[in-house]
């Protein structure tokens, strides 16, 4: 069984069709890159998977471990192992990053019927992953993402991912706004999490990120459907030729 199966997914936002019969199957242990021009539906897919309101699924299914998750609220999907790394991580003044991490981790554990983590165990885990990502303890005491640079916000997303240990990670344009050093730190963080029990959907405009997070499969999305699937060479071809040919194919 695939970890994730998206079948004939049709999605509207404000009455406008964004996804038009999208099919996607992802097996555990693999990294899929999702590329495509602006407006092709990449971020919509990410948000629909995570369960954002205002996205109306008119047809199709999304199965996680064979279970349809479309009727589940976002928090239950998260507890089942789905993680969306936001393109624009939000700032939450007044909620310390530590409190946020701990509340999230324990809420997920509770939903899965697991015990809450003890404070020392929690701190140990946070310190371990924060250290690898170069996140200072001082940042963890601040409000979530408050006063963080673009790169720090993205690193904080990876920190959350590393701590929550999801099975399906959706990275929505994680490379946007990052300089090359920050990009490497983020990519290293992602690569460290690659495992046979986990899969990734890496959404990006640019091939550059895929030099650092090397995908097993590359999909091209256009007008709400996957129009081409290949290996990592496909991303290099796209870098050379652009997306125009795929948009014309649809026209």
């Amino acid at each position, binding site marked *: 069984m695939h970890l994730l199966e998206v079948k004939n997914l049709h999605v509207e936002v404000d009455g406008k069709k964004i996804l038009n019969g999208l099919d996607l199957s992802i097996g555990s242990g693999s990294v899929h890159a999702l590329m495509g021009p602006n407006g092709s539906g990449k971020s919509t897919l990410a948000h629909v998977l*995570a*369960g*954002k*309101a205002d996205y109306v699924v008119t047809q199709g299914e999304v199965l996680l471990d064979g279970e349809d998750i479309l009727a589940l*609220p*976002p*928090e239950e999907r*998260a*507890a089942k192992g789905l*993680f*969306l790394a*936001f393109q624009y*991580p*939000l700032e*939450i*003044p*007044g*909620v310390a990053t530590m*409190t*946020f991490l701990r*509340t*999230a*981790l324990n*809420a*997920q554990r509770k*939903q899965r019927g697991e015990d809450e983590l003890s404070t020392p165990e929690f701190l140990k885990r946070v310190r371990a992953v924060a250290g690898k990502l170069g996140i200072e303890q001082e940042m963890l005491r601040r*409000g979530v993402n408050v006063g963080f640079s673009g790169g720090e916000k993205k690193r904080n997303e990876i920190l*959350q991912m590393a701590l*929550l240990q999801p099975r399906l990670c959706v990275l929505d344009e994680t490379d946007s706004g990052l300089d090359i050093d920050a990009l490497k730190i983020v990519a290293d963080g992602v690569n460290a999490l690659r495992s046979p029990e986990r899969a990734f959907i890496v959404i990006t405009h640019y091939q550059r990120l895929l030099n650092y997070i090397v995908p097993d499969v590359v999909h091209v999305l256009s007008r709400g459907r996957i129009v081409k699937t290949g290996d990592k060479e496909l991303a290099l071809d796209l870098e050379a030729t652009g997306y125009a040919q795929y948009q014309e194919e649809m026209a």
Partner: protein
Amino acid sequence: MNAEVRPIKTAAETALATSFAAVKRALPGPAAVGALREDAFRRFETEGLPHRRVEEWKYTDLRALMREAKPLAGLPDAAAKDRAKAALATLAAVDARRIVFVDGTLVPELSDLDRLEAGLTIRSMAQALAAGDRDLLAHLGRLVPTDDVAVALNTAFMGDGALIHVAPGAALAQPIHLVFVNAGGEAVAIFARSLVVIEDGARAMLLESHVGCSDASEHQVNAVLELKVGDAAHVDHVKITGEGAGALHVSTLMAAVGAHARFNEFLFTTGGGIVRNQAFVRFGGEGTVAGIRGATLLKGRQHADTTLVAEHAAAECTSREVFKSVLDDEGRSVFQGKIIVCPRAQKTDAKMATHALLLSDTAEADNKPELEIFADDVQCGHGATSGALDQELLFYLKARGIPAKEAEALLIQAFVGEAVEGIEHAGLRDALIDRVVAWLKARE
């Protein structure tokens, strides 16, 4: 005709007049105090209960809201004192010297009146009034003079309260906690009057809690606290309004703050059916730094009005005003905040912010910030917002596995936290956060 038309007295106004005539001779104090009472009551009779056409009371029409005047509270009996004990658990986590008033009367056996720290004096207001204490009369009603009708009514009927003096330079290690308990018997009217004088260079922290033994009790409280903060003194005052939803609670703080002082005021309101918290603060000396903050959490049909006048009468004072309200169901909050900068108050730095978070479609927030600036070299500003919880933030939290109610609670707590963080005393800050958490839990 341009004669002022006074409508016929309401039932409450008539009852107050009857009551005053009946009890005035029995109220504590010699002739000088009696004259103060008579003057004050005449002021009330001229104005009547304040109503919506009086600008300061526009959003809290006391004439309409106060249907009747409850009888004046008598001395608490043993049963009332017993019931009051249960309510004393309030803020038990904060180590403080407790002074307990049951139905407005000081109850020594429930209070910590022994072993006072050096420089601290605590007396019963009723006893000091009865004795015609000269020091008391020198201050009473004179720290921040006002013609406010609620204060006039309090002066006319004032009974007991706390009379506290902290000597120059005395640094009190332990906070003083004035606990006003309504014992929840027959609905009564309570007119509490307190005067606290913190002399130059002294350090004191004053807590003031108003609690009720019964949620349904329709008692009426009119509490006045006059506070003198001496030069270079450091004073915190935290008032907690936590009575039952049946209570009508009107309270006034009149604070005169000296030079180079530090003064922090905090108004925390979760209780009461109709609440009006007035704070008249006057910065009379240079170089003082002050924070005037508050948090109001309302549900059901609660109505809470915070009316603040901060007068910068001297140069180079800094004040920060931050008020937050969280409104569920048909809760309604009113914030009227006015900063006055007098002509000589150059280099004033004053910033006022008021924010309301509406959790339901039927809640209402009225925010009225005002600046009156008569000096030309100042930095003053104000901001007011009201809105619902941010759906994008909620989604972010939920996408991390945090259930909707918990995510809302986290955001609401953060919203209120911005004001509560202004409280310097860590234990009290935590105690108030706990109360916010408890309020949020009760929503679920």
